[in-house]
């Protein structure tokens, strides 16, 4: 459960995985997961283990986008059906690349 960050062996990609709940309670660990990301790295946000997500999580995804600016690409990976529905309601498919 919680947020983990994993750097690929070649150092080009960072995968942030949110397992369980994605809401206010993981704010600190979500923020900590991306602060060490370097310019130009690909960021994958793995939501395949996310059971619950609300608008605070949408805000945190926008916070990540705000943080990296144009310096990195963000890809949302394998959102669960419940999570994908929340992303769709908020039209986040227009803001982020989503890979199923």
């Amino acid at each position, binding site marked *: 459960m919680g947020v983990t960050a994993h750097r690929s062996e070649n150092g080009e990609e960072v995968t942030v995985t949110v397992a369980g709940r994605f*809401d206010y309670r993981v704010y600190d660990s979500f*923020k900590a997961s991306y602060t060490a990301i370097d310019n130009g790295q690909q960021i994958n946000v793995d939501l395949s283990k996310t059971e619950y997500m*609300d*608008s605070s999580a949408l805000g945190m995804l*926008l*916070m990540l986008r*705000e943080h990296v600016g144009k310096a990195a690409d963000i890809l949302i990976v394998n959102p669960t059906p*419940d999570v994908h529905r929340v992303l769709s*309601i908020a039209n986040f498919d227009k803001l982020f690349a989503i890979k199923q």
Partner: protein
Amino acid sequence: MQTLAQAQACCWRFDSAELKDTALVEKLVSSISREFTVASERKRDLELVLTEVVTNSIDHGILGLDSTVKKDPIGFEQYFISRAAKLAELTQGSIEISVEQSAADCIRISIQDSGPGFSYPTGELKQTPENLLLAYGRGLLIIQKLCESMTHIGNGNCVVLDFATQ
């Protein structure tokens, strides 16, 4: 959390200390599920809807965050930081939630906060490119999508939702 018995309705009141409890909504969903029949596949949606509506009442009704944001648009990180700071300092304010059976498979949920009111958008909400990046408003979209109806009454500090329980 105080349960107040009313004829055919259940009412819960949360004071400023309880509004800081991150598990408030989970406890509320359990309480509502004890009093009303909610299909298990609808409980996650009920939790999501209540999270959004309680967050709106706290952020905009009680903490007055929307006026701050409108005056001086801030980033998301700043929004989260000022929310946490204001919530930690909160000593006044409360939210009352009442639930009644409005049809065989529907409950009516009324949420009233002690704040001065909030000017809610009227009509169908749309996510346009301009408001896609606003610091708030996504919660209302979620509520609108997952409820049968959403009505703001009074000066905007009371919202009434019809939620299908089956």
